[in-house]
């Protein structure tokens, strides 16, 4: 017998601190597998966010930087400009990327920085205990929207892939999920493409992963996947929102 599946080299041996059933670990693995398959660990530098994945720097074997809340795209920009031949990725949650860091996000995208952005959208602030996020759904109950997100006062959730795909600087934007083997395979291909684009100098790629937060949603991991399919995917449809990596479109 041969080993057909094992932990990728680009992940360290440190056990994840995430809650049981948290999909962060799946996405970390997909990023690490991609780094392994492209043979780029030695020249990759990742930028961790503030949020649940703040300690991502302990989990990836490549060099890592821990950025301030929302500033990962700016840190990645400085890094990539200094090291144009290295591979630079950010890994950010919805509060980090689409609230406090939206300015940095949009401008890194519109400049077409040749970086890869992995965006985890689980419609909630996990690390701080389940507050309303910029991507929380209308009516969604959170610690800070206890009567459900009221769009009259709290506004509407932001669809990041749709928004960024309007920018000329964006090369590739795809929304994926990791709730099933089939979707994990699609997510893997998308992440690999987003890194490959950078290796080939094609510019800014973002992969939005619609995800879950079983702990703060108050559900089992499997219930959370089902809630995500029933409620999030209609608002955040999966698919490719922009792809000019094979030429203009």
């Amino acid at each position: 017998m041969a080993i057909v599946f094992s932990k990728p080299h680009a992940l360290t041996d440190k056990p994840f601190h995430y809650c049981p059933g948290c999909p962060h670990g799946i996405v970390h693995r997909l990023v690490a597998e991609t780094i392994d398959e492209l043979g780029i660990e030695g020249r990759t530098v990742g930028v961790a966010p503030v949020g649940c994945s703040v300690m991502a720097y302990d989990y990836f074997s490549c060099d890592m930087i821990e950025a301030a809340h929302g500033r990962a795209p700016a840190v990645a920009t400085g890094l990539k400009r200094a090291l144009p031949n290295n591979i630079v990725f950010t890994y950010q949650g919805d509060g980090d990327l689409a609230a406090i860091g939206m300015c940095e996000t949009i401008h890194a995208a519109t400049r077409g920085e040749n970086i890869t952005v992995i965006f985890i959208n689980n419609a909630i602030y996990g690390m701080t205990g389940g507050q309303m996020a910029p991507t929380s759904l209308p009516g969604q109950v959170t610690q800070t929207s206890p009567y459900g997100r009221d769009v009259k006062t709290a506004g509407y959730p932001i669809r990041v892939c749709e928004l960024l795909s309007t920018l000329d600087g964006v090369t590739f934007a795809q929304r994926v999920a990791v709730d099933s083997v089939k979707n994990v395979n699609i997510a893997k291909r998308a992440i690999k493409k987003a890194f490959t684009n950078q290796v080939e100098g094609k510019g800014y790629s973002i992969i939005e992963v619609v995800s879950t937060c079983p702990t703060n949603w108050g559900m089992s991991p499997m219930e959370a996947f089902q809630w995500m399919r029933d409620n999030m995917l209609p608002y955040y449809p999966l698919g490719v929102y922009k792809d000019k990596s094979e030429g203009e479109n």
Partner: protein
Amino acid sequence: MNERVLMKGNEALAEAAICAGCRHFFGYPITPQTEVAAYMAKRMPKIGGTYLQAESEIAAINMVLGASSAGVRAMTSSSSPGISLKSEGISYIAGSDLPALIVNVQRGGPGLGGIQPSQSDYWQATKATGHGDFHMLVFAPSTVQEMVDLVFDAFDLGDKYRMPAMLFLDGMLGQMMEPVILPDPSSRPVIEKPWAANGHQGKRPHNIIKSLYLEPQELERTIIERFKRYDHIKATEQRAEEYLTDDADIIIVAYGASSRIARSAVNTARSMGIKAGLIRPITLWPFPVDIINKNVENTKAFLSVEMSMGQMVDDVRLVVNGRRPVSFFGRTGGIIPTPDEVLEQIKAINGGM
């Protein structure tokens, strides 16, 4: 030896940064430092460097953090309101033990304040640029030549001590034209950066650049280690110029633009028979405690002259510690004090002695 050229302060400091090996400038327009950015925008593309106009001062300082993490010399420049925005990033740079050059061409505050020269960011620069227990090196030149020299020192010492350094100016110095000689970079030390996050190439464990320490014991230990470095800096890097202090009855303490005015007032006072002198701090952090201290016993009074409501005077009083009277004179809001106004203060102190 390089040749002497006539340059405007803001442009001279930009060219000095390039001479010192800086190829990464991240900025955001704000009066009165825009010439630094404009100069960089013109020069950097010609020499294979990066000039990037960021979306905000917050983004610019975090780009500096990213580039500095990669191990290259990086800088940003701004003016007072912009430095407030950068203070978050400066705290992270300090907490991540990264070098960086931050230029503050000060203007009047608080808030939007005004656009005329000021020194009212002294407290911010020396005591509270961002949250947490940390310091940055703060250099206060008073001539264009010194501005150029201190750019080199700020990069070298920032790299040596792995900490942010600020070049602390005001609109007056930035606009001034004076002859300068650009230093020879080959005479400077080369500082290795094995800590840089520039890709491990399979040859070393992964480097992590971070300011997060969730274990309080670990955070305390990290900060205590950093403060040992600060103690070493305080012991070895204090700088100030002394002018006519040997026999002075009254010593003015003033830095930057206000030191130039104070010097004129000291000269006039001397011509009138009043024994005035000047201590001009060149490093504001570390504050030149030793140089002020050694003058306390031989003089009768101190006068702090600033373009603020009185900020550095606190540090002068801490050093003098009640042994001599310390008074203050300043103008604020963008008004530069005149030599005559300072002379009046000297005369008043002299008359009261």
